[in-house]
């Protein structure tokens, strides 16, 4: 079983067009991905309505595509309402944020209300990171310390420049998980050496990236010196403990 914990379904970002649902699932079939957590692509620029759009796009692909919500913390209480509706009415499985593109700090009091709501709803947050000034692993670590009940996933796991920070917070905070999409191979090797294997989840950024990147990310995990049992944890076991794929 392979679950992709980090993808973006169809939408637009400047001149980048995402991948339409049918083509998206075809790529999953061709690369051997069973299920995917799908996020918005354009909702980082205008979050209102984005959850309805994403839910509609994923309709008809139940059992393969699992949409996650995105809200705009700058909207204050509206963001909390949007999140509750996305989870309770639209059935969304988690919260995806991109603090750099959405222009908010992880210490912002409006955002902290959103975090509290994710705890009440028992859903994880996956956040873009590796990009200063708003998306650094240590900022997520700070959030993890404030909210030990929050489940926080570092998408990209610090990217190329801040992966050492991702390893540090992954080791330190029990509620921080790493999704090393686009991380250097040597960084992923260090992650499996020094971070508990249960903290690592597989992701590809498909939708922002393409089929070729999916193949490369899979190859990266397959080349790690791991037992098959541990590889299976990264490919699917760990994310199933954070996300409800059953209902």
């Amino acid at each position: 079983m392979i679950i992709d914990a980090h993808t973006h379904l169809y939408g637009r970002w400047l001149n980048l067009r995402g991948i339409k649902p049918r083509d998206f699932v075809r790529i999953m079939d061709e690369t051997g991905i069973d299920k995917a957590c799908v996020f918005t692509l354009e909702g980082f620029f205008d979050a209102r309505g984005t959850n309805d759009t994403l839910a509609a796009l994923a309709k008809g692909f139940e059992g393969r595509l699992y949409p996650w919500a995105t809200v705009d913390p700058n909207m204050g209480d509206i963001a909390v309402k949007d999140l509750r509706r996305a989870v309770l009415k639209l059935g969304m499985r988690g919260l995806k944020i991109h603090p750099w593109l959405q222009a908010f700090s992880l210490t912002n009091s409006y955002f902290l209300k959103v975090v509290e709501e994710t705890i009440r709803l028992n859903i994880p947050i996956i956040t873009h990171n590796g990009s200063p000034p708003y998306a650094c692993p240590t900022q997520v670590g700070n959030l993890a310390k404030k909210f030990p009940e929050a489940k926080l996933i570092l998408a990209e796991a610090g990217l190329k420049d801040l992966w050492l920070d991702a390893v540090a917070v992954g080791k330190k905070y029990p509620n921080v998980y790493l999704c090393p999409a686009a991380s250097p191979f040597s960084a992923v090797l260090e992650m499996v050496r020094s971070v508990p294997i249960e903290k690592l989840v597989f992701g590809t950024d498909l939708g922002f990236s393409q089929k070729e990147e999916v193949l490369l990310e899979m190859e990266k995990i397959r080349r790690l010196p791991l037992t098959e049992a541990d590889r299976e944890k990264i490919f699917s076991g760990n994310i199933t403990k954070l996300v409800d794929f059953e209902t």
Partner: protein
Amino acid sequence: MKTIDGNATLERGGVKALLEEMDRSGAERAVIGPARNFAAVDNRAGNSYVAAAVRRHPDRFTGFAVASPWYGKKAVAELERARGLGLSGLKIFPALQGFILTDPLIFPLMDFAERADWPVWCAAGAPIAAMPLQLAELAETYPRVRFMMGYGGFCDFWYDVPDSLNRCPNLWIETSYIHPCQITPWVESCGISKFVFGSDHPFSSLPLELKKIGLLNDSIDKRAILGENLARFLGRPR
């Protein structure tokens, strides 16, 4: 197809592993340079180590040198020494060595590169020291020096990469870390002749980086990326 790795690095004891990886991957040659502590502070030891590897394996390696610009005149003297040992290019690491690409601190090393006809590979991408447009400024300041944007400028300043390349006829780009979905449009907008394969071994994986080039669409001239373009960056036979 002839394959040359335009960016591999050595830590102490790293020669054997690199050669094995090259043999497994079918890479005939590699441009090698000192990594990590060698690049940051132990420049002399790093240059000597790389030069020894080149002397032992002249058919497999071309060697680049390092010198922290903070050493001033001593840095230039170290590059002169490295040239005497057979090294033939310069690698700079702004984030690791602690300087910004527009800082005149680096100019004495660039003056040396110009005098020696040495190409300059730059670890590029990290804010605030080594962003693509900062490298373009340096390349325009030294139009007779050939520069390489290492790591493809990965990651968050990718929008600046095409303008940087197109502004500077003396600037090439090395392909480690960047994605196929980035390389393809950049080849269209900047021309294939700018692109040079590099693995950043051992920090990325040579076989994975080569697989990436293989996954590029058929319209892209892989032969150019895997060796032909590097020859123009290196200049006279080395």
